[in-house]
């Protein structure tokens, strides 16, 4: 068989996938670019070419700048917390204790819970009148009166971050645990014999094994967190007073609530560009880490 035929055969086998990808991803993406230079409405008007007016309007608007700050804060805080809690949980699950197998199995629960169910569950927990959080804190004597955790601009975003962390840190823990189990036992034993303390054992013996998988998890979680929509839509819809309005929520409102397809598309592409830059920066980081190892 000639190399030529093998490559032709490969392309033929990939054809169905490529057709699907072009029609549900390629074409819509190109059309979003086209729309972003028009003043098209979602229904009805085709819209006419307006140049970069949409981009100028969106980038200069205070809505975009505020949503960018909110999104960045959400992504940085929730992913950082998930990483720290995940590694701590993994170190714990790597120790010997009774019920370890059961606890490891339980870690899959938050991950398996559908995002919308998780959001609904936490919305009920944070309920201002009957919520479990208010009840628990009152019964423990930590607060005097019930608070509206999701209804106050000061606490809503933090409440969302906690709900998001609860769902996602167990996944980081499971990934870190798999990496911990790959650390050869004789290496940790040797470090122990050489008198390395717990911190040095973690930093110099275990961390090199954790770094790769954790970096991958960090990349993917950050990108996911930057695109966040579901949990926020179900819990606060971007409120109160737009204090939890992230970029994806803003695009949704612009394109679908206000039906401004043109400016919505330009905003969506700005978000896409930000995610791409983020991903590219991470990819470079990953390559450097891989080269160093």
């Amino acid at each position, binding site marked *: 068989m000639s190399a030529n035929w093998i*490559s032709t055969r490969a392309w033929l086998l990939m054809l169905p996938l490529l057709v699907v990808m072009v029609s549900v991803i390629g074409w*819509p*993406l190109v059309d979003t670019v086209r729309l972003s230079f028009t003043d098209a409405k979602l229904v009805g008007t085709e819209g006419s070419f307006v140049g970069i007016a949409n981009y100028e309007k969106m980038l200069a608007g205070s809505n975009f700048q505020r949503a960018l700050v909110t999104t960045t804060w959400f992504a940085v805080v929730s992913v950082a917390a998930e990483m720290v809690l995940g590694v701590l949980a993994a170190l714990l699950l790597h120790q010997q204790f009774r019920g370890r197998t059961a606890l490891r199995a339980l870690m899959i629960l938050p991950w398996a*819970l559908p995002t919308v169910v998780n959001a609904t569950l936490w919305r009920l927990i944070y309920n201002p009148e009957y919520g479990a959080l208010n009840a628990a804190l009152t019964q423990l004597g930590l607060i005097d009166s019930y608070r509206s955790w999701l209804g106050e601009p000061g606490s809503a975003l933090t409440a969302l971050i906690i709900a998001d962390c609860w769902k996602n840190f167990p996944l980081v823990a499971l990934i870190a645990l798999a990496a911990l189990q790959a650390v050869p036992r004789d290496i940790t034993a040797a470090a122990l014999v050489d008198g390395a303390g717990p911190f040095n054992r973690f930093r110099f013996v275990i961390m090199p094994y954790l770094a790769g998988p954790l970096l991958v998890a960090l990349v993917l*979680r950050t990108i996911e967190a930057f695109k966040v929509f579901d949990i926020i839509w179900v819990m606060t819809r971007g409120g109160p007073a737009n204090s939890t309005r992230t970029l994806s929520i803003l695009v949704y409102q612009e394109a679908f609530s206000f039906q401004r397809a043109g400016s919505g598309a330009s905003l*969506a592409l700005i*978000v896409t560009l930000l995610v791409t830059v983020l991903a590219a920066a991470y990819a470079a980081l990953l390559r450097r880490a891989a080269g160093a190892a």
Partner: protein
Amino acid sequence: MERQSRLFSIFVHASALLLAAVILAPVVWLFVMSISPAADLSAKPLSWWPSDIELSRYRTLLSAIENSAGAAFIAALINSLMVAGMATLAAIVVAVPAAWAVSRTPAVSWSLYAVIATYMLPPVALAVPLYMGLAYFGLLNTVFGLALVYLTILAPFTTWLLKSGFDAIPREIESAAMIDGARLDQILRLLTLPLAAPVMATSALFAFLLAWDEFFYALLFTSDLRAKTLTVAIADLAGGRVSDYGLIATAGVLAALPPVLIGLIMQRALISGLTSGGVKG
């Protein structure tokens, strides 16, 4: 770590208890809410244990009396099953040949990275044209249209998982069969695909869970019982004027049941998939 001090052991056990409580408390509370009488849930101080076990909500949601909350819930359940089932099937059908080709032909593997890269696209970047396209073909508010859109997520993801699966099957087996005179279709049908069956099953489960979990496109592209999925139905309940929080909790428990069962049973396969293939957010 061969000899642990007593103090360290106590610390480990206490931490394990704390972790178990953190993981379990919200889930158990969801279940408790679903079986507590409505009066218990609005009592102050809140009673943490149901005074009586109330199963009527499960009966309500699972009975298909016309125009009831149950009829709406069951319609959403069926829609979710159909959309996730169709999208998963279609994703596997297009992903298997592509994944095999990429795995066996390194020269075209760059195209896979192009496919994977689309996984990072925020759905908002595709939503407006997809909405207009679906409207043009009359596919808005249909399970078929939504399943088609779900391919944007499922196809790249399953191709990636299946490619690592095929990579693990030595190509020498295929070469040996070819030397023995087997045709390519025979090799794939009798040799490679049976060997890849486990990874195909895992990929299909992952894809199904992703589709089951999806909310953004379902919110945009469906509007009533004809196509609304469970995630949208639950978000409606949570954001609506339902006075019985137990009913919302019950819908949540029922929607969470399939993925939680799959998660617990398939634990090992899921975790190896998570650590090798990718991470679902």
